[in-house]
């Protein structure tokens, strides 16, 4: 895809002006890093507050066609407990195919108004596919209304609350995985306490015409810097969060992907979602292969696609995400191994450029998540 055909987010000009190195990502020209560099951007986000442009992600409303709860409809293809979401509460869930494979992961929030409407954020690379699946499977029950005129930014890090509360004190009142409408700089924004860095922070949906002004206001703080896709990837990897299409794909169930926390307890009992037969069987017996953390013993990073071998050198799986963890201070990775290798501490080898490097199966996250939960959930 040539640069001319790449889409631009409403914040594109700001990235270029800030010295962002623009690269193609999911059809958009996105900043992979700024002059600070990936390592320092990563550390800045863990110490202060990082500002991310995630406007390339898909934002939509889901309404029901007959006035009933649209969550009842989407629960048919998502295993999360969504009907029970109260207004202002959100949940990480998965879009499943008929075989129980994961087409994408997404965030579903119950809005305050219009009553019953769901606000959904899906991955940039999957948004057209996701909307097509929703239309094809549930088009008779729900309407998907893509929000094309809104930017989405994330403010992540230990200083995020202080910075955002200086614009709107209400922001401090939100608990992790809660969302509400908050007026920022005179503009009504949809603000959630969520993110994908393992840090406390917010995602802010803002009308595109107002997005640059809001970002400039946030960047006026010494505690805020732009963070690019490079550090976004190392931040989420360190805290063990999956990248859709890499750490799982449509062939893998939530059990194999080790994201069973996204399957509601009652949903398991009822088994009333796509692919439930296979998923419930794997819940009981384990998946043939599943995602684990992998800690290389040496310093060489193991990138996506690196072959995982047993101690005899037989290939047993592949790394799906891997690199250097700046906060961890060494290489970290995730990958799929057979059930008999999933125990933490199991020794494996990584075949990097033809040479075997020792590694161990490890617990994730590699770096502690620091969400601001109101209560233990």
């Amino acid at each position, binding site marked *: 895809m040539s640069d001319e055909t790449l889409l631009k987010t409403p914040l594109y000009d700001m990235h270029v002006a800030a010295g962002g190195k623009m690269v193609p990502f999911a059809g958009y020209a996105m900043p992979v890093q700024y002059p600070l560099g990936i390592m320092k951007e990563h550390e800045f986000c863990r110490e202060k507050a990082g500002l991310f442009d995630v406007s390339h992600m898909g934002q939509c409303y889901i309404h029901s066609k007959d006035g009933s709860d649209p969550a009842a409809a989407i629960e048919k293809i998502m295993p999360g407990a969504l009907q029970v979401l109260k207004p202002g509460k959100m949940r990480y869930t998965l879009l499943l195919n008929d075989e129980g494979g994961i087409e994408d992961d997404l965030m579903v929030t119950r809005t305050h108004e219009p009553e019953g409407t769901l606000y959904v954020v899906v991955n940039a690379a999957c948004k057209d596919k996701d909307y097509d699946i929703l239309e094809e499977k549930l088009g008779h029950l729900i309407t998907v209304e893509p929000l094309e005129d809104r930017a989405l930014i994330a403010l992540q890090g230990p200083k995020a609350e202080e910075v955002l509360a200086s614009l709107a004190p209400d922001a401090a009142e939100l608990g992790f995985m809660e969302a509400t409408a908050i007026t920022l700089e005179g503009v009504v924004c949809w603000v959630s306490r969520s993110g994908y860095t393992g840090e406390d922070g917010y995602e802010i949906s803002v009308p595109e015409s107002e997005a640059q002004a809001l970002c400039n206001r946030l960047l006026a703080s010494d505690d805020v810097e732009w963070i690019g896709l490079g550090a976004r990837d190392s931040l989420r990897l360190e805290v063990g969060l999956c990248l859709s299409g890499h750490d799982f794909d449509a062939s893998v169930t939530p059990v194999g992907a080790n994201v069973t926390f996204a399957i509601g307890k009652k949903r398991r009992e009822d088994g009333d979602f796509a692919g439930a037969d296979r998923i419930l069987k794997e819940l009981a017996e384990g998946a043939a292969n599943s995602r684990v953390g992998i800690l290389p013993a040496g310093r060489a*990073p193991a990138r996506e696609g690196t072959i995982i071998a047993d101690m005899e050198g037989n290939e047993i799986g592949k790394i799906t995400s891997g690199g250097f963890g700046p906060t961890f201070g060494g290489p970290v990775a995730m990958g799929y191994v057979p059930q008999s290798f999933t125990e933490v501490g199991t020794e494996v080898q990584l075949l990097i450029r033809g040479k075997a490097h020792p590694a161990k199966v490890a617990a994730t996250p590699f770096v502690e998540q620091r969400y601001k939960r109101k209560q233990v959930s």
Partner: protein
Amino acid sequence: MIKFTEEHEWLEVDGDVATVGITDYAQNALGDVVFVELPEVGATYEKGDEVAVVESVKAASEVYAPLAGEITEVNEALEGEPALVNSAAMDGGWFFKIKIADKGELDDMMDETAYAEFVEGL
């Protein structure tokens, strides 16, 4: 005598041995270096062979032998401190020393002025 290649390597030539590293331009383009895989002392390479790998946070990049020869020494300091490639690309961040098989291969390389012009034109 210092020479440069279009692959952004520098060679400090002393007799028939060249100390090889990557230029400031190259380290800047790569970003934060977190790991360098160095060749074995005693290994021989032809010009253009993959001789080392430099890993930044984001990606791995190959380093190719700028000329044919035998590795006589590697910079072991890079094992503990790969960031030297960023902070001292032109001296402390050197990669390896190579015994030059054919000094004629140096003739095709750029001097400092020519390399500066080459980078200017990128």
